[in-house]
């Protein structure tokens, strides 16, 4: 039974990562037209950099395989150049009349949202499959 529950943990880790990706995309879109952040600087578009979980030495030694869903991820600034919009009347406009806005690409963000949702669904499917397998196994020989 524990083998099936391990799959839950693995897919749960994947779901957590996809949720963070969706959160990041939502944050980028929400701040696409802000000109100043709370600390006075321009908002930087964020992206998620995820790393597959490294199997612990002990686990690899004893089990031979790594079943761990806790992938590590970092949310970091993507470093995209700000977008300059000509708006001389804006209070944050520079001497030439340009306002700097975060370089959020709506196309990229929508793609991020779509892939995050689909990948989340794929993880749910994997969990459902694991559950169905366990349930079928429990049905063996039942009258």
């Amino acid at each position, binding site marked *: *039974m524990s083998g*099936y*529950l391990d799959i*839950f*943990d693995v897919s*749960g880790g994947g*779901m*957590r990562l996809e*949720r963070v990706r969706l959160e990041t995309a939502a944050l980028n879109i929400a701040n696409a037209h802000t000109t100043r952040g709370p600390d006075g600087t321009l908002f930087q578009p964020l992206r998620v950099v995820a790393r597959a979980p490294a199997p612990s030495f002990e686990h690899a030694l004893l089990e031979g395989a790594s079943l761990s869903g806790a992938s590590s991820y970092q949310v970091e600034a993507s470093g995209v150049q700000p977008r300059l919009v000509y708006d001389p009347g804006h209070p944050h406009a520079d001497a030439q009349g340009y306002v700097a806005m975060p370089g959020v690409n709506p196309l990229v963000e929508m793609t991020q949202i779509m892939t995050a949702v689909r990948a989340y669904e794929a993880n749910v499917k994997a*969990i459902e499959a694991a*559950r169905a397998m*366990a*349930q079928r196994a*429990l049905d063996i*020989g*039942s*009258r």
Partner: protein
Amino acid sequence: MELSAIQAVGAIGAPERKAETAAGAEPPDFAKWLEQQVQVADREIRTADREVQKLAVGESDNLHQVMLSLERARLSLDLIVQVRNRLLEAYQDIQRMQV
């Protein structure tokens, strides 16, 4: 005449009892396993209960973790229930046996 007939029955009964004591170490192991599994299921159910409570009061923002712990609890309980069903079926089969 009659005595020798009964003695034959006793001869059959004696080795059987010996086999019983030799295999006597097995049944407590199963009971221990079952008890352990019941405890595991109980722990899973308690965890799920706590997660749901956390979600209800707004402490948790991890919806899928709550659902996963609920599923985990259900599967653990299902295993116990199925083992119990098989045991009961076996017992009833023996109970119904024509003697």
